[in-house]
């Protein structure tokens, strides 16, 4: 039986949520920023060799907001996992990270949350290290949709986690 899981990507606008999905689903990237309004829905099957199964990830790419509390609640219904994305080069996008994560946990206590710092290619390794120390919440992945760094790893790890839940 094929397992289907809803994964919601959430975060400020312009942090690269759509680019991460495009990199994961189509393995493409564009430097041009195109705003997402509402929600885009994508689907990709992820094989889990350890379990001998495939997980069908239905990925909801939500429009970015200055404040994630403005997100339409219906979008969050039935979510199996969240990917909270911020832009490492814009402090505005991670300044409220701790309270945002608390909010998501309140809305869906059982759904795992992966915190992702995207556009890591814009900073040096030292700057990434400093940023990691500065942010209190644990950052699961520093990704780059542009280079593809850690993108597949992020979704594969999440898929494995979801199948074992």
């Amino acid at each position, binding site marked *: 039986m094929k397992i289907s899981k*809803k994964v919601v990507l959430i975060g400020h606008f*312009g942090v690269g949520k759509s680019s991460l999905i495009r990199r994961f689903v189509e393995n493409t990237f564009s430097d041009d*920023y195109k705003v997402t309004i509402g*929600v885009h829905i994508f*689907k990709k099957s992820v094989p889990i060799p350890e379990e001998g199964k495939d997980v069908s990830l239905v990925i909801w790419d939500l429009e970015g907001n200055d404040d994630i509390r403005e997100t339409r609640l*219906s979008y969050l219904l*039935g979510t199996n996992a969240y990917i909270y994305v911020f832009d490492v080069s814009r402090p505005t996008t991670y300044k409220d990270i701790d309270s945002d994560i608390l909010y998501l946990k309140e809305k869906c206590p059982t759904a795992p949350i992966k915190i992702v710092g995207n556009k890591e290619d814009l900073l040096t390794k030292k700057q990434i290290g400093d940023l990691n120390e500065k942010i209190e919440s644990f950052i699961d992945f520093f990704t780059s949709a542009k280079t593809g760094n850690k993108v597949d790893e992020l979704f594969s790890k999440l898929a494995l986690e979801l199948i074992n839940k």
Partner: protein
Amino acid sequence: MLEHYKKSQLNVFNQFIIIDKEKIVIQNESLLFKDAIGKQINAVHPFFETVNFLSIKKNEEFYFKCVNINLKNQHHIIDITIKTFEKDTNSLIIIDDLTQHYNNLQKTTQIRNENLINSQLLKYKNQILKEKELFKNQFIRNFSHEIKIPVNSINRMCLLLENSNLSQNQLYTLNVITNINNQLKHILNDILDISKIETGYFKIRTSTFNICNIIGHIESMAKQKCLDKQLKFVSKIDKNCPNFIEGDQFRLTQILTNLIENAIKFTDSGTVKLEVIVKSKTENMVILNFKISDTGIGIEKKELDAIFNGFYQLKNNSIKYPGIGLGLAIVKYLLVALKGNITVESKLKEGSLFTIALPYKISKNQIPDKKLIREKKQSINARKILIADPFSKAKTEIETILNKKEYILNFVESGDEVIESLYRSNYDALIMNTKLPKMDGIETIRYIRLSEETSFKDIPVIMVSENAIDEKEVCIKNKANTFIKKPYSKDLLIEKIKSIIT
């Protein structure tokens, strides 16, 4: 008729789908999701895969606004409403195709978001630059301070060495080291000044001072430097200028000194001029224009803005006129802090004119400075004396003893330089150490007296030596006017000078 039109219009944008409790499509209007009847709703579009809660929630409505879907390469933006009922196990799905409406919204949001992102990025980059600048300045300040300690120690050690028994050549080398060390100290002070200003450690110290006095001191310094290059230095103060003003006299001196030193540096012949003009005056305030002009190499128009940047050097001239390019940057910074401004006009190969404007409060006590007027008059009749001594200590001693208003002093370090200076300029007297590198003092006076150059062959000469017994006789034999044994007193030096200068 109205109902008919309404229905036909709605049909273009609306689609109703009914699914049963097994989530199979049992009724469908063919707007977007065609050929869906009989299929599991999950198979119609991935959106429906994740609405499993339909079987749990009863008699509710769920609204999913602005859902982007791609169907047969066509992009649609739709609102989806899902209704469940209390008794009926079927559910109703209503699709509203609002693509056009949302496309308009997207354009507006795109512009808004792009502007916000750009502004956030600029703010962040600016913050990073400020942090880097602060770090750089603090680093330079600490670093320069640490370097200044050994530089001062080198100077002290050089002074100690100077007083030990060194040969002529060793003394000459020591003097070169001292001069280079002094240059290094000067550069460090400039760098420290810049970093102090940029890190906010710079303080303005206001006091009442006499503007004529400041100009007088600067004039003495400038005349000394101009002598070396055979330049003429002229200064002029507006008669309407108040004697006493309130401001930071130390920084004014620093600004004018930097500009005049630059003017002298880049001028090979002609005149350097300092003029103080009252630009505007009220009962309490005065704005003074300080004009520093030269007949030097000039600056190309395209370089005029860049010259005030730190570490900037004039193109094609950095070898002939070396320096680190901080002087004008310091001037600019200081003027901003003192609420003044600077303009520059220049013509290549003709010269430059720097005009600075500075506001000052006029002091309430305008006591006529008789002493200063006297000193100023004296400076016009000042005597020019050439001093040849390789020891920097001697320079300091003579500078301390001889009143700068009465004497214009020019220092050289070797016999060759004495002869060169005498050919270039007229002097009223020569004070010369017998110990000089290359051509010593005795050889030099012999050359002078045997010379047929009328401008200096009879110049009054005072020979100076530590060894009176051996050298006094030789000096007098070679037609030195008089002789002084080191160390000498202030009174003795003045008495000897007055005795030979008529």
